[in-house]
């Protein structure tokens, strides 16, 4: 990342800081440790999905099946997480495996057919939802082991475990994107696919990776959600894809591919989380919550744009 694009991120960062300031002034409850931890906790799932979709969008693709992958992986993991059945590692591997497999399936269809990612992942979004319902027979999978429930509900030294996972995932994703060859190739593929190919990059392989990683992160989100609500819900995650994509784009990832950062996406996710937390704190009537939410999101990105102008 060079100086110019770092500067470009200040825009949304400033917008975010401004909103936090306004909130801190309007309700003293906002800037308490316990509330900040709650926000972190609430943001974690969306942030994980947003990290995944950031990779995808950087390569010029899109993934609408995130929410369904959350449901399938959650149900699949829950089915193996009843107390006194399997050790904890089994549901985790099942969930992460299911997510990676679905992601890889997306990647395979996208690279092998000429079907646009929008349609492929819209298709797998529907398929995934059906699978989750079939797997669970339409009923929540409950009665999960305590260890499993710790993932989403436990603390480490007072820090909720989801926040710990979020921070680790953020670090890993940032490294993958900025410090590995795969990450470099993602930018190249999204920036100019024919040129990337002509530079010797195996474009299909990069795309396979990207959708698989996205599936893996969705699975992590699915496991976290399932553990947090101590049930595998077949209808969980509906609409999560839009929130995740929104976080990425608010954070400066361009839908035309080739640009984006994990820090931006994290700020995007935090922005959405902070707004929805504080609208509750301020007890804004739910109808108006939606209006305010929409206005603030557009407003923040407008502010971002103003910051970027030369």
């Amino acid at each position, binding site marked *: 990342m*060079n*100086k*110019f694009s770092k500067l470009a991120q200040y825009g949304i960062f400033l917008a975010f800081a401004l909103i936090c300031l306004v909130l801190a002034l309007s309700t003293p409850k906002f800037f308490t440790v316990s509330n900040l931890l709650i926000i972190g906790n609430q943001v974690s799932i969306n942030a994980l999905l947003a990290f995944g979709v950031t990779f995808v969008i950087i390569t010029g693709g899109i993934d609408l099946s995130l929410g369904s992958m959350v449901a399938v992986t959650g149900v699949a993991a829950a089915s193996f997480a009843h107390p006194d059945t399997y050790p904890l590692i089994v549901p985790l591997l099942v969930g992460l495996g299911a997510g990676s497999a679905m992601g890889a399936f997306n990647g395979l269809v996208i690279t092998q057919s000429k079907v646009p990612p929008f349609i492929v992942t819209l298709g797998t979004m529907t398929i995934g939802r059906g699978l989750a319902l079939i797997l669970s027979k339409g009923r929540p999978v409950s009665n999960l082991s305590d260890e499993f429930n710790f993932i989403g509900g436990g603390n480490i030294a007072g820090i909720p475990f989801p926040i710990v996972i979020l921070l680790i995932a953020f670090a890993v994703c940032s*490294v993958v994107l900025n*410090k*590995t*060859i795969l990450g*470099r*190739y993602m*930018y*190249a593929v999204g*920036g*100019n696919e*024919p*040129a*990337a*190919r*002509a*530079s*010797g*990059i*195996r474009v299909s392989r990069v795309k396979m990776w990207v959708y698989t990683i996205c599936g893996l992160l969705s699975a992590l989100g699915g496991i976290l959600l399932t553990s947090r609500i101590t049930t595998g819900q077949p209808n969980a995650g509906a609409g999560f894809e839009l929130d995740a994509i929104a976080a990425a784009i608010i954070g400066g990832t361009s839908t035309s591919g*080739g*640009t984006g950062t994990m820090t931006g996406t994290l700020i995007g996710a935090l922005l959405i989380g902070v707004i929805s937390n504080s609208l509750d704190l301020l007890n804004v009537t739910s109808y108006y919550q939606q209006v305010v939410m929409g206005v603030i999101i557009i407003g923040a990105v407008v502010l971002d744009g103003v910051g970027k102008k*030369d």
Partner: protein
Amino acid sequence: MSDYILRVKEISKSFSGVKALDNIHFDLKKGEVHALMGENGAGKSTFMKILIGLVAPDSGEVLLEGENLIGSNVNDTLKKGISMIHQEILIIPELTVAQNIFLGREREVSGKNGLLSGWLNDSEINRQAAALLDKMGVNIAPKAKMKHLSVAQMQMVEIAKAISNNAKVIIMDEPTSAISDKEVGTLFQIIRDLKAQGVSIIYISHKMDEIFQVSDTITVLRDGKYIGTKSAAELDQNALIAMMVGREIDQMFPEATQVFGQELLSVKNLGRAGKFSNISFNVKSGEILGLAGLMGAGRTEIARAIFGLDPWDEGEISIKQSPLRARTPREAIDRGIGYVSEDRKGLGFIPRMSVKDNITLSSMNNHRKGGLINTHSEQSVTEKMIADLKIKTAGTGQHVTYLSGGNQQKVVIGKVLLASPEIIILDEPTRGVDVGAKFEIYKLIRSLADQGMAIIMISSELPEILGLSDRILVLSKGKQTALLSKAEATQELIMRYAVA
């Protein structure tokens, strides 16, 4: 005084603090062809975009027949009688040739008013386009989709579009960079006709011979500054180059050494349906093989096939006697082939990536450190390449999109070199590159050959082919018509085989 149609005073423009134009003056007479010269990045295109209203200057004045144009948008300036052939091809790929030519002027063509003024009249558009192309002597179907044209054909459509506007001033920003001699001839005839009708033309090109063929007056810019204006008759090539680069270049083409090593690449009976057939040649270590031919002869297609960008149907390609198997760019690179495409923007670089990231893109395996990227080695390799190739950039982190054309080309060459190729295919390597940089690139090509690489150079500029090649393969309509040695090759002979 009144015979000036366009007067420009004190134009300045900066991009994020960097001055691209500094206090430029420019006067254009009615009915003259005025060449605008300068190295890559001198600010020529930026200046022209200001005239047409696509870029707003920071200060200054543009007077068209006394009327100030500053603040006008493109739509206004087009209507007021300035039109422009842009340096980068600006077409709508999904629309037809005729639709592209009259884009933005459908209302004039349809000749309808009132309620029906929003209605298209495509039959009239097609008719007028056909007449126009016919009059220009260009053989392109008005109803063909733009995306199915070759770059050269697209360029001819852009020329047609600019002259169909009945403008008083036509700006031509490197109109000949993608077309061959025949079309250049056509264009020059058009320019002479326009001149006779009193139309003024601003002409930008890096091809020196063209400048002296068409222009009456020459203005030179250097590093965004106005250097001077002279009548073409006052200047010769060397004097002009000196004005542009601030020094003289005596010998354009470096001496050949002519000691060849083993055969590196051999192509046998290569064919692809509808594109080319029965192509056989080889290149040895230390040799430069020139590929000559007219536009559409199939030279690029052969290069793309060798590099694995396109499939081929018959024949064989071998590197040091062992055939290519995977037929992908990755394999080609791994086996030591490098390719510098004629389509710099489309295939050459990733615009929104830095010079460093672009230049190391094909050789990332050299910068692996425990699974991560070794930024230090990347940085030092990039700095060395910038120094070796004399790339003009604000730094290794600069986005390639903001470099001038010649420097973008050098970045692409740098990328190819870093993958340590033994065979390099250069497709129109000096297209859009200024004289100074051209000279650098020629020296570079020769020194690569001297280091033992095998070079295939495709070029539409015959002097370049003649000056640099050790052998010349001539193609015509997808067939190979001659393989000439340096000694026997002349401009006339190549042309004879090229039209065979």
